[in-house]
């Protein structure tokens, strides 16, 4: 009996400490807003996080996933921005959170949302069509130098990640490409395998199906080092056999697209800490590792402060590049 009382006293003494540690908890269903249509990269990202949170019971409230992909994701960001102070809404996106306001008239500024976490980085590769006369990125550049404005480069959307990278390549090696914007990276991949365009700069997951079927070949990856070796994708090659673009003489150190989460402005510190911690736990599960491997991304967690600094620097870089291209919106 005395023992029980003692235990109770200890528990009672510990309670405030426990309460302090778990200071903030969601009290209503949490909305995961996806700044992209159903089935896209950001959608799969959000739904994977959802399934992991549910599986490991990382949150006491249910999750509702909403797709708001209108206007290249503007719909989702505006929706979350207008819910300022609401700690039960967050938006899943990419670098379009800070890049889109630079080039298009949209209803939010990049610092009006609160960065919570970046959970993965999607790689970019230079792909070429089947039966292309060039066999390497170096030969591709040489061919483009000989025929300025003739080599066709396809990509998703205009003034978005794909065209940005294309313009960076042009600037880095002094060539001129013909950029053709499509609705999605998937569409660009199909155009590549039909040999209607010469090249594209898709993410691994967007083009791997074509690569497996011999309908498109990777030339190089825009990364500091080669991709991790996995099982072979085709009979002869795996991801790690692809040279980096720097090796191939395209001086672009690295180009990656983060998969990140934002909350509205003015949310309580405790809420921010709670979700950041939750996403950190998600990023440490085997299911997450599986998702990263299946989509050939790089798993890398960034907390709120780190992500904020990253965005500030990246936005500055983007602004400079867009200034040169004359893309900045008034």
């Amino acid at each position: 009996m005395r023992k029980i009382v003692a235990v109770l006293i200890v528990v009672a003494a510990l309670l405030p400490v426990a309460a302090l540690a778990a200071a903030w908890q969601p009290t209503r269903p949490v909305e995961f807003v996806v700044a992209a249509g159903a089935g896209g990269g950001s959608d799969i990202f959000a739904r994977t996080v959802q399934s992991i949170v549910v599986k490991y019971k990382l949150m006491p409230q249910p999750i509702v996933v909403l797709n708001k992909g209108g206007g290249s994701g503007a719909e989702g960001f505006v929706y979350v921005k207008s819910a300022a102070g609401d700690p039960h809404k967050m938006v899943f996106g990419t670098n379009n959170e800070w890049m889109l306001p630079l080039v298009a008239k949209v209803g939010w500024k990049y610092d009006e949302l609160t960065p919570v976490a970046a959970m993965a980085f999607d790689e970019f590769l230079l792909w070429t069509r089947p039966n292309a006369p060039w066999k390497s990125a170096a030969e591709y550049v040489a061919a483009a130098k000989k025929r300025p404005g003739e080599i066709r480069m396809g990509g998703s959307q205009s003034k978005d990640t794909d065209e940005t990278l294309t313009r960076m390549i042009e600037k880095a090696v002094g060539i001129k490409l013909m950029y053709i914007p499509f609705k999605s990276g998937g569409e660009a991949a199909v155009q590549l395998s039909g040999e209607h365009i010469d090249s594209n700069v898709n993410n691994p997951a967007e083009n791997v199906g074509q690569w497996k079927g011999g309908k498109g070949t990777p030339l190089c990856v825009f990364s500091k080092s080669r991709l991790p070796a996995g099982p072979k994708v085709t009979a002869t090659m795996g991801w790690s056999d692809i040279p980096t673009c720097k090796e191939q003489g395209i001086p672009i150190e690295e180009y990656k697209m983060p998969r990140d989460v934002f909350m509205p402005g003015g949310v309580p510190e405790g809420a921010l800490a709670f979700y950041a911690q939750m996403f950190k736990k998600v990023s440490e599960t085997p299911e997450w590792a599986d998702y990263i491997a299946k989509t050939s991304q790089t798993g890398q967690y960034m907390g709120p402060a780190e992500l904020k600094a990253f965005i500030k620097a990246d936005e500055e870089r983007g602004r400079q590049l867009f200034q040169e291209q004359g893309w900045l919106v008034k």
Partner: protein
Amino acid sequence: MLDNLPLLLNGFSLAVSPYNIMLMMVGVFLGILVGVLPGLGAPNGVTLLMPLTFGMNPVSAIILLTSMYWGALYGGSTTSILFNIPGEPSSVATTFDGHPMAKAGRATEALTTAFVASGFGALFGVVVVTILSSWATRFALRFSPVEYFSVFMLAFGSFVAFGGGSPIKALVSLGLGFSWASIGMDTVSGSMRLTYGFNELSRGINLLVVVIGLYGIAELCQTMQASPGTVQPVATRLSPREVLRAVLAMPRYWIALLRSACIGVWMGITPGGPTAATFMSYGVGRRFSKAGARFGTGEPQGLVSSETADQAAGSAAMLPMLALGLPSSATAAVLLGGLMIWGLTPGPALFAERPDFVWGLIASMYVSNAVCVIMALTTVPLFAAVLRAPFNITGPLIVIVCLVGAWTVGSNRTDIAMVLAFGAVGYFMSRLDYPVAPLVLAMVLGDRTEDAFRQSMILAKGSIWIFWSNPLAGTIITVALLCFALPGFTALWRLARRQFLPPPVASGR
């Protein structure tokens, strides 16, 4: 061609297990349910079911999800016919003849005809997929923006040019559709167009919101005004014998069935998609069918034209989705995301890499569509009975269904108000004899046509002769232009005949 047969048989052995058949029935049932509720629809339904499938084996998972998709297509036709509310964009053309039939007390016949025609379209689509899979994939690969543009023009040409009514009013309707479609992000230039600084417009205007207003709400207004106060419930015969009679009448429409199925498969494999297929099929039917003059007044062949093409396109579109990773509808885009999560890579290699999955899916399409037709037919008396309720109860309920539908499209307050605005526009348009269908077609294809044209211009550095640079695109665009010119030719022909020939004895034929 026939070397696919053993693969298909193997597929059947995988797909046809009691467990999978049960999944099909669950999927079809849920599909009909989400299809009946406008706005929720197939893409949302499949998205919601997706997390459940993560632990399943891919064959069972895709069977569940595709069954839901087929079910939703059937359910979408139901509301189109009974209440003039298209549950899916692809069932807009179903309202043209389906709803007049229901209003004339032929709801049972209309629903039955629609379901059987859908079943035929699906079967035709699957057979084509089975026999021509590798050829069709190679064919689809030949489509660059140049060919896309030609196909879209063909769809416009075959629908718009064959319509009647005031051409100037049709032009206004087309113009409105085009301008609404171009609101929001412009793919080719990356700028926000026609938003006038409103955040609400930056996401564009959703087709379903427009359609629920233009058809659903506008139709309600019309009904309310037509017979003051108490609208009499429509007398509908409900006996199963009525269903059977309608089924037995189907073979009479064999020409319409075959023609529409072919158009559907063509639009499913080329990038047109199901919605454009229904319009094109309806337009061609109106021009070339003997019953064409009665289209739009409750003619079963009109209903057959749109429904058959819809399902044929939906099934055939599975091919570019699996073999190229190219989604031709919103639902296909969601399914593609699912493939990735199940660890499959859509693309040319999928057929060689995972024949069990591909052929399991194709085999399941035969079975699940049979399940669909049977389950849908059993619901006919139930749904037709709804029309017997007094209209001052069903009317308000339809209003609620429209508003809920508008909300579920994008969880957005403004959509609810917009449905109302479009309802008013639709009411005035139909009262003043402005055709509404060209507007919808322009919204479906408008921005894709503009994109394809501008992409082609980038490729060609501004020369429009690129559309005749290869036989495929050249043929399609020439046929499309002929379609546009056809009304002019017929008018000239009539004029010439009147000039040089004595007037016919009796007017008409």
